[in-house]
């Protein structure tokens, strides 16, 4: 049975959503009582808007039930990138007690890459600060990222790419690098020297952590 509710047909849906209304329902040629016609039209518009908003609310509820978990799911690696930093063993602290010049050590760096763990080799320099504290330096030149090497004869670190020079404690001597070699977080625990290997933004005057 066709009821008045049925008259609120689909061709009105798009209009009620957009707010645009046409007056094609009022046939002016046959209906001279324009006021009553417009009143009926207004009542239908409000019912239409109600139906549309009800449907919209239901669709919104469904979208949020799956949309919010999907958002967290997709953004997970973006938000958890910095987590999972681990201490990496360099060696016995004793080994470095009497070093006169920086020592190159190769560490096995364990990095999480999504669901896999990648073990890569990475060189670090073990040296001493002015105050005599053990210090671990990243070999990555803070200029453009080449690997610096220690030159015993000249008693300094030299970057092979653009000739940046650093003293034994890592501070900048000359050349294009805007800062000294990056000092890595290190600690001696149970007699073992450990380091947190991290990457820093190149070519800026201050040490900025990357990821």
């Amino acid at each position, binding site marked *: 049975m066709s009821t008045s509710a049925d008259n609120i047909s689909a061709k009105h*849906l798009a209009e009620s959503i957009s707010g645009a209304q046409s007056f094609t329902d009022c046939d002016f040629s046959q209906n001279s009582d324009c006021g009553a016609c417009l009143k009926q039209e207004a009542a239908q518009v409000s019912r239409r808007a109600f139906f549309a908003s009800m449907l919209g609310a239901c669709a919104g509820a469904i979208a949020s039930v799956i949309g919010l978990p999907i958002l967290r799911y997709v953004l997970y690696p973006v938000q958890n990138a910095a987590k999972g930093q681990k201490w990496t063993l360099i060696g016995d602290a004793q080994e470095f007690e009497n070093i006169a010049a920086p020592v190159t050590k190769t560490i096995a760096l364990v990095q999480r890459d999504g669901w896999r763990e990648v073990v890569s080799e990475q060189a670090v320099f073990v040296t001493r600060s002015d105050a005599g504290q053990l210090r671990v330096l990243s070999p990555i030149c803070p200029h453009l990222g080449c690997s610096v090497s220690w030159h015993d004869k000249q008693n300094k670190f030299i970057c092979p790419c653009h000739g940046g020079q650093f003293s034994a404690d890592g501070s900048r001597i000359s050349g294009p690098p805007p800062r000294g070699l990056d000092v890595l977080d290190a600690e001696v625990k149970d007699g073992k020297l450990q380091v947190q290997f991290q990457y820093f933004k190149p070519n800026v005057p201050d040490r900025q952590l990357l990821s």
Partner: protein
Amino acid sequence: MSNIISKETPSDGRLASRVLHWFDQRTGIKKLTATALDEPIPGGARWAYVFGSGLLFIFLLQVITGVCLALYYTPTAETAHTSVAYITKQVAGGAFLRSLHSYGSSAMIIVLALHFLQTFLYGAFKGRRELLWMSGALLSFLVLGMGFTGYLLPWDQKAYFATAVGTNVAGQVPFIGSFLTRMLRGGDTIGTLTLSRFYVGHVFLIPGFIFLFVGAHILLFRKAGPAGPIHEDPVAPKLPTEPFYPRQVFFDMGFALLIIAALAGLAYLRPVTLGPIANPADSHFLPRPEWYYLPMFQWLKYWEGPGVIIGILVIPGLLAACLFLMPFLDRRLERRIWRRPIPALAVTIVVFGMVYLGVKSQLDDTEGSAAQQLAQQREDEKAFSVAPFEPYTKPVAATSVPTPSAKAADPLVAKGKDIFSDRGCNACHGDNGVGTPLAPSLTGITRKYPQDRLVALLHSPNARMKAGGMPAVDATPDEMNALLAYLKTLGAAPANSAASLHSPADAPKGTTTLPNGD
């Protein structure tokens, strides 16, 4: 305020309506929406008609959650299980979305059964609706195919062994059986190629066909029109009609809400588990398929010997054919189920038979040693599900390139090698000059350029080299000779390093990208 004006330009000047108008003039979207929503339903909207759109809703849900799972999943035997464990145990919302996908497949089967029963009981497939019904039957088979292929992808114990059984069943087909099994598996055994095949089927092929046949199903449905209630004439409906919008849309929306509430509630309260990684050597594991394959699983127990072909091929094949050809078998226009005793009886027998087989299969598993083993398997699965995530690690292998001792034996080469590393050439060009993302490989460089040209380039790099960060090499002629001697050995086999036996044509193309001078 004439009709013409109101059609040409929106009566109020709001931006949204003007944009919609602009869009409509180019796409006809309003007419399309109206056609979709004004579909006349003879006899009016009913709750009984919600199952078709319910299936469409679940399919879209499966597509969305499936795309999410594919974001972290990898289809290789080595890594599939770890990536699913990562999704389940690590990624925020991962357990929920995977559970939604897994329960969604069950919901698909349930709603499919309801859609089938409603259409059958109402005789809604009658009256020029043969193609409509057959496209639906094809869709049912495709959905079962989705269940079968998707079950293997987590690569846990039950996935592996259920697929072993499933693909063995295909092997019972006469003449082409063993070929079929090898075709499905991509070889004699279930391995990484099987996983690739099932993945491609589950993610590309079958969904593609489902999209195709859903389109055909809806198109054919709109052509034939809704059949209406059971007394209605299916060819020329006589009852007053009611448009699809708004009441039927509300019923459909209500059903969709019910589905999502049930699925989300289940996924949240009872997230699906993941068993230990597939271990083909485990001879004790008792495979069990998903619940909707249990009737078939039980059915196969009753057939052995030469008659097995009847059990696994002839009878299921006949049933599938009857389902597919239903409109040609039950072809009178009579829709009332009580006037169609033979089809009614046949469907009742099949439905009750399947329910019986499914229940029997469950009951059989509650007794004896099988019950113990299955309980053990459930325990193992639970234990693995709550255990912390273990990342995948590459099996240990020699990764560093060994330095051929023959090269070091030549003192000039050894000196050149020292210069190469002291000057930090290896920082960009890599150890042994193999190349890195920062700078090209140097293998074969001495064959590509004459010696004097190479020395000149090293002393003063050209513009492109400088742009890449290549510094001028400040070296004495002796040092330069040593460096060139070392460069000559790069990439050559140790035995050949003394005398270059390679002709220039042997140099791998593209490995040397030192630019020509200009």
